[in-house]
């Protein structure tokens, strides 16, 4: 039986200066906070980071950026993170913005072994600048190259030892696509079960895409309820 469980330290040891990393999560749900803390402790720098947003100030991906470890961020929206917007405005980090679903689709294409996608989203806006435009079915569309990473870091609710994954509620978000789009895929999981225990029809990401599983022995405060979003 294949058992992909590993320690956090061993799972992330191939990450080095200059690596391109993608992170699941949309806000708190699905963000691999423990893996991010491990990367901070590893001390690597000059990272290119890919994530829907940069979490909120002082949390998750924001901590890596605030620590000056990242040269470039590829993302969709930073509206809830004034600190990273400040770092971007001071030009201490290069930021590339994409429409959220186009970011997801670029990652999907990368995971599907495609070279890119064609889209009319953003045609006629400043997004068209510097993009290669082709006419498809009589309509101008832009080419968006596919996106892959050296390592994808994702969060699951349940994993079996082979890496079959189940996500919970709105925590699925970018995790599912990112699990397919990196040379090495590391998942942190809240629960670990034996192979054969998951209903195969309920698996969201097949274990064939996963390289390392890190079992979370506890969830840090960052995974909990954020007071400022309580009504």
């Amino acid at each position, binding site marked *: 039986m294949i058992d992909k469980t590993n320690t956090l330290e061993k799972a992330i040891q191939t990450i080095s200066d200059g690596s391109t990393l993608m992170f699941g999560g949309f*806000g708190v749900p699905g963000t691999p906070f423990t893996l991010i803390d491990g990367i901070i402790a590893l001390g690597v720098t000059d990272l290119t980071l890919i994530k829907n947003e940069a979490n909120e100030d002082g949390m998750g991906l924001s901590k890596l950026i605030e620590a000056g470890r990242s040269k470039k961020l590829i993302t*969709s929206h930073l509206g809830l993170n004034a600190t990273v917007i400040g770092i971007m405005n001071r030009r201490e980090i290069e930021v590339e*913005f994409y429409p959220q*679903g*186009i970011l*997801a689709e670029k990652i999907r294409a990368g995971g599907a072994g495609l070279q890119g996608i064609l889209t009319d*989203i953003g045609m006629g806006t400043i997004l068209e600048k510097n993009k290669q435009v082709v006419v498809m079915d009589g309509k101008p569309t832009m080419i968006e190259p596919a996106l892959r990473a050296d390592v994808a870091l994702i969060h699951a609710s349940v994993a079996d030892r082979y890496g079959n994954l189940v996500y919970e509620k709105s925590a699925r978000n*970018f995790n599912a696509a990112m699990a397919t789009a990196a040379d090495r895929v590391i998942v942190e999981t809240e629960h670990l079960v034996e192979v054969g225990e998951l209903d195969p029809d309920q698996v969201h990401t097949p274990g064939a895409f996963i390289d390392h599983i890190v079992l979370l022995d506890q969830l840090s405060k960052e995974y909990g309820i954020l007071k400022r*979003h309580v*009504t």
Partner: protein
Amino acid sequence: MSLKEIIAKRAAREIQDGSIINLGIGIPTLIPKYLDATKTVIVHSENGIIGMGQACPRGAEDRNLIDAGGRYVTVNSGVSFCDSVLSFSLIRGGRLDLAFLGALEVSKTGDLANWIIPGKYSPGIGGGMEVAQKAKRLIVTITHTDRKGRPKILDSCTLPLTAGKCVSTIITELGVFDILETGLHLREISKETDIDHIIRNTEADIILPEGELLVF
């Protein structure tokens, strides 16, 4: 009732039974509490919820259930969850019947600017561009003027566009405006204002209805 609540309450009346809708940040997030309980409305949230409910009551929060603005939410019976790829397939693939977005500027031809003020405000694009471009019907919910009292409904937008010719209807605290081939049509007026006040606070020319001007 605040201006934003007035706008949200009027906006809720535009929603048809059985429709799939998406709500942007700001005023649109106030709309669910004004939904007609006799209607079935499927609220889609970009982060992968199809069948979102109301804002979550204090103390009942689920750490894995937020809307796209980070607020804790509830879900309705029949909800399903999906990943970001599928969530945007719903949007770009044309399954979104109606969307509500905020705006910095809207033009009389339906151009929308709501994501960037170059040099001042550029938090990113988010899901708004795809929603604006692909929803079957887009309603902009805005206060009629900005904080300095300047009109937001213009002849043409001065800011970079989110999408061109995408807005169907504009709802402000003063009125409901439909954007048609013929121009900007006032459909309904608030009982708190009059036509002269609306004309003075709107840069674009307004076309009045030939029949009765409804009041809300």
